[in-house]
C-alpha cells in the first residue's frame, strides 16, 4: 500500500503510541485486502462497546488507546450492555455496571461521541451519497451503503476505532465501484409489510456473500432498516440494491446468472418456522433501535389501552429518538421499559431472561446464539396485542 509521508510518520510512531497502533491496523488490513491507499472518511462508528462482548481484554485495550489517542473525525459507538441511566431497573448487576462504565469512560477519553446506537444515521451522523465512512455495526453499514448511498465496509471494532483516530480507512471492498455490483437477483411478490424483516432474513441466506438486487418490495426507511439488518445477520454481505417496482428493461433482469423468486407463502412459511413458543418472559422491540416514527406509531396503537401483566417489555431506541418524542415515550413506559444506549442483542440478556419474543429478523439470529434465548418471531402488531388489553 502506498503511504504519504505524513502517514509514514504516524506509522513510525512519531505521533505517539495509539496513533501508531491505529495506523498499523489500517495498513495491515489494507495490505490483506489489496488496498492501494488510505482515503479520508467523514465519520466512524465503533463496535465492541458492551462489556458482554469485549470483556476485560477489551477494556484494557480501549484504556491503552485512550492514554494518548483521540478521534480526528466524528465517531459514534455501538449499543452498550445497559442503559446508562436505567441500568438498575433492567436488572443489571453492579459488577457489570462498573465494567461498562469503564468502557464508556475509555471511549469518552478517546473523544468518541456519546452516541451508543446501531442507528448512527438517525442518532448521530448521516453521511451523504458517495461519502466514505468507516462503520462497524452491520445493520448500519447496510443502511449506509444501500439506502444512503454512502460507502463503508463492515469494519471490526478495533479497525473502526483506528479509522476514527486517523480519520481514514483503507480503500478496498465497498469503497470501490467494482465491488458494489449486485450479483444475484431476489424477486419478491406481494409480501405483507409486517413480514419485511423475514424477507430480509431469507434474502441474506440466499445471497451469501453476493450483493443482492432486491425487487418487488416497496419499503419505507424504517422497513429498509429492519430489512437490511436481517440481511447482514443471515448473510455475509453489507449491501443490497433495490428497485422498488421493477428492473428497467429485460436486459437488466437477464444479466443475473442467479435469480430467486419468493412470494408471500415462502415468507409466511419462514415466519411460522421462527414462531417458537408463546410463553415469553421478555418481549423486545427495537433491533435496530426504534426511530421516532416507530415509537410514535406504537404509542398511538397502545394509547387508551391498558398493560397486560405477564412478561417484561423492552422498547430499545437511541437517546436522540427518546428525547425527540416525550409523549410517545410516556405512553410506552406504561407498557414496558423504554431503553436507550443498549439492546437485546448486546445486553447480558441471558442473565435476565430465557424466552424472548421479537419483531426483528436480526435479533432472531443473535438471541438464540449470543443471548442464549428461546426466541420467537412475531410482527410488531402481534406483540403490541400481546402486551396490551
Amino acid at each position, binding site marked *: 500500500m502506498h503511504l504519504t509521508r505524513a502517514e509514514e510518520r504516524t506509522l513510525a510512531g512519531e505521533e505517539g503510541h495509539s496513533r501508531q*497502533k491505529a495506523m*498499523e*491496523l489500517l495498513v*495491515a*488490513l489494507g*495490505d*490483506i485486502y489489496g488496498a492501494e491507499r488510505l482515503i479520508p472518511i467523514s465519520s466512524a462508528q465503533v463496535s*465492541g462497546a458492551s462489556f458482554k*462482548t*469485549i*470483556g*476485560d*481484554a*477489551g477494556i*484494557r*485495550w480501549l484504556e491503552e488507546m485512550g492514554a494518548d489517542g483521540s478521534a480526528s473525525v466524528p465517531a459514534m459507538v455501538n449499543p452498550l450492555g445497559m442503559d446508562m441511566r436505567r441500568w438498575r431497573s433492567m436488572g443489571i448487576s453492579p459488577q457489570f455496571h462498573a465494567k461498562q462504565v469503564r468502557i464508556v469512560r475509555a471511549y469518552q477519553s478517546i473523544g468518541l461521541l456519546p452516541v451508543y446506537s446501531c442507528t448512527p444515521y438517525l442518532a448521530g451522523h448521516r453521511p451523504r451519497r458517495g461519502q466514505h465512512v468507516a462503520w462497524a455495526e452491520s445493520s448500519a453499514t447496510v443502511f449506509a451503503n444501500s439506502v444512503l448511498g454512502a460507502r463503508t465496509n463492515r469494519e*471490526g*471494532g*478495533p*479497525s473502526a476505532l483506528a479509522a476514527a483516530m486517523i480519520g481514514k480507512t483503507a480503500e478496498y471492498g465497498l469503497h470501490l465501484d467494482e465491488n458494489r455490483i449486485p450479483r444475484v437477483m431476489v424477486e419478491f411478490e406481494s409480501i405483507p409489510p409486517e413480514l419485511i424483516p423475514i424477507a430480509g432474513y431469507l434474502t441474506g441466506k440466499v445471497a451469501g456473500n453476493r450483493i443482492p438486487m432486491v425487487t418487488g418490495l416497496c419499503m419505507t426507511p424504517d422497513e429498509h432498516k429492519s430489512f437490511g439488518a436481517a440481511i447482514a445477520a443471515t448473510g455475509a454481505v453489507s449491501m443490497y440494491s433495490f428497485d422498488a417496482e421493477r428492473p428497467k428493461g429485460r436486459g437488466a433482469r437477464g444479466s443475473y446468472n442467479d435469480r430467486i423468486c419468493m412470494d408471500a407463502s415462502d415468507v409466511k412459511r419462514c415466519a411460522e418456522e421462527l414462531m417458537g413458543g408463546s410463553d415469553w418472559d421478555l418481549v423486545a422491540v427495537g433491533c435496530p433501535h426504534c426511530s421516532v416514527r416507530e415509537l410514535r406509531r406504537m404509542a398511538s396503537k397502545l394509547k387508551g389501552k391498558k398493560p397486560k401483566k405477564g412478561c417484561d417489555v423492552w422498547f430499545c431506541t437511541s437517546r436522540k429518538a427518546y428525547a425527540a418524542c416525550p409523549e410517545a415515550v410516556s405512553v410506552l413506559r406504561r407498557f414496558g421499559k423504554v431503553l436507550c444506549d443498549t439492546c437485546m442483542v448486546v445486553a447480558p440478556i441471558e442473565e435476565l431472561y430465557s424466552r424472548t419474543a421479537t419483531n426483528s429478523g436480526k435479533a432472531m439470529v443473535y438471541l438464540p446464539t449470543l443471548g442464549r434465548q428461546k426466541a420467537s418471531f412475531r410482527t410488531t402488531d402481534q406483540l403490541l396485542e400481546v402486551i396490551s388489553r
Partner: protein
Amino acid sequence: MRGRRIKGGSAQGKALVCSTPLSFLGGVDASSGKIMDRDCGARGRSVHNSILCFPYGRGSTVGSYAMYQLKLNGKAPAAIINRSAEPIVATGAIISDIPMVDEVDTSVIENGDYLVVEASSGTVELKGVNERHVVTCILRHGTKVLLLRRSNEVGSYKGHWAGVSGFIEEGETDIEAAKREIAEEVGVKARTARRHIDSKSFRNSDTVWTVHPFLFDVKTTRISTDWEHDEHRWVSPSEICKYDTVPGLEAVVTELLDGF
C-alpha cells in the same frame, strides 16, 4: 523464507505448528495458553513464547480480544506465522504487540524447528534447515509430456521419475536455470516458457525444497539425456499416476496444464 509483514518486531523460538485454521476464541485457553482445538495436531501444547504457525485464523471477531487477553495473562506466543492473514488474527497481533508475518508456507515448518523471525522485513529463518530452490520443467510435445528417470548418480530421489529439474544457482533467475537445465539434461534449446506458476515448497528432513515449475512446448521428441537420467518416456498426463515420481509431480503437471 520471505513473507509479508503484518506486525513488525523480532522474535525467536521453537515452532508450534497447527495444521488447521485456528480460532483464538475457544481454540486457545486464555489463562493457560494451551491449545484446545481438537483437529490441529497441537492440542494440549501451550502457545506461550512459541513461534505459532498455522494456515490462517477463523471464528468470531472477538478472537482479536482473546489474543489481547492472552498477552495480558503473559501467555502470548512470541510471534505468529500464517500462510494468509485474515483480519481477526491480524488485528489481534497488532493490538497485542505480537510480531506477525504471513505469506509463508507453514506446511514446511515442523514442531520444534528453531525459528528466527524478523517480522519488520517479513523474513523467517529456519535454523538448521536449508532451503533449496529448484526448477522443474515439464516439456510438452502435442499431448504428451516428458518424464525422466533419475539415475543412480544423482544426489536425491534416485530411480524416481521427474521433469527436467535442477538447482537454481547463485546469481541465476529461475527462468535462466530452467533453460540451462533443459539444454544440459536433454539437449534441447528451449525458447520462452509457455507457463510459469507459483513455486511450491515441501519439507524433507532438514531441507525445504522450493520448486519453481515451468511448462515448455518443444517441437521434437528426440532428446539426449545426460548422466543424471537413465531412461525417458513421453506419456500422457493421465498416466503419471502410474509412475513412481518425485513428490508432488502430478499436482504440478495438472496445475501447469490447467487451461492449456
